[in-house]
């Protein structure tokens, strides 16, 4: 049963050259910010290390922080045996968002990442099949959950706005 600070120490020892930053001033839970392109190595470590043993990814959500002109992805991890939780955050640039995919570690992340791509346009590197999941496959009007998204006038002859 470890809390976020101890996990941060373990991460720092294991990955000396990666930068980790703990933010716990905001209410409720603290989270660790790390580099988007190495998130899969960190996840491998978190998954396989016996003390941490994060064997289940609860939630992966994309967020559009338009004021800071960046897209971020939050990972909620949990260990069913040791019963501790962890929140990771990854920040990428808004114009060419790229994050390493964690599908090889947690198979559950597959559709979460496809949804983040569909809604925000975040490209996940070496994802098995990165396609739109909720929107129609031929939807060219961009990614709907971005703050600066406008509705197309027509889609296949049907008027979209009211």
């Amino acid at each position, binding site marked *: 049963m470890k809390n976020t600070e101890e996990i941060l120490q373990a991460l720092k020892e294991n990955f000396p050259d990666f930068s980790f930053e703990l933010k716990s001033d905001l209410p409720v839970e603290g989270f660790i910010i790390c580099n988007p392109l190495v998130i899969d190595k960190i996840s491998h470590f978190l998954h396989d290390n016996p003390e941490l043993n994060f064997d289940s990814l609860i939630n992966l959500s994309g967020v559009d922080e338009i004021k800071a002109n960046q897209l971020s992805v939050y990972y909620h991890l949990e260990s069913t045996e040791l019963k501790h939780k962890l929140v990771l955050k990854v920040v990428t640039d808004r114009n060419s968002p790229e994050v390493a995919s964690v599908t090889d570690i947690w198979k559950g992340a597959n559709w979460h990442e496809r949804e983040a791509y569909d809604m925000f346009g975040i490209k996940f590197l070496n994802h098995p099949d990165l396609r739109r999941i*909720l*929107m*129609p496959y031929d939807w060219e009007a961009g990614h*709907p959950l971005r703050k600066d*998204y406008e*509705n197309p006038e027509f*889609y*296949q002859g*049907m*008027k*979209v*706005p*009211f």
Partner: protein
Amino acid sequence: MGLLDKEFTDGNIVIAKAEDLMNWARLSSLWQVSFGLACCAIEMMATSASHYDFDRFGVIPRPSPRHADIIIISGTVTLKMATRIKRLYEQMPEPKYIISMGSCSNSGGPYWEHGYHVLKGIDRVIPVDVYVPGCPPRPEALLEGLIKLQEKIRKTSLVKKST
């Protein structure tokens, strides 16, 4: 070109009687395509369950649109689904009717403002006969919609209305 395609200019006793018989037969055995979209589909299932029995009116669920004459659009129609519904409607044999159940399929319902993927009303795609308001409408409301449709069928006639 069957009898039902022809338009008669003046009605007479034979046509009137034949019409009544055919309309009565059509309205008393409406076979429904077993097809539900969202929360209204659960209310439709509750309507065809034991408490409010749809079978009392001769409505039985048929799996394939080829055997059905009525399609109840129960739930939110999204843009991705709208093209499929249009095809299903097209594939039903000719004397076919549509009940749009729930405010989602009537006019987009609670998703009318920010629903970028929601079609604002099924009547933009297929011609609707009866609208049943409510979100989700109670089974009694759906039964009332069905009776409204039966009255509408009872009044259809082959004689061309004198415009």
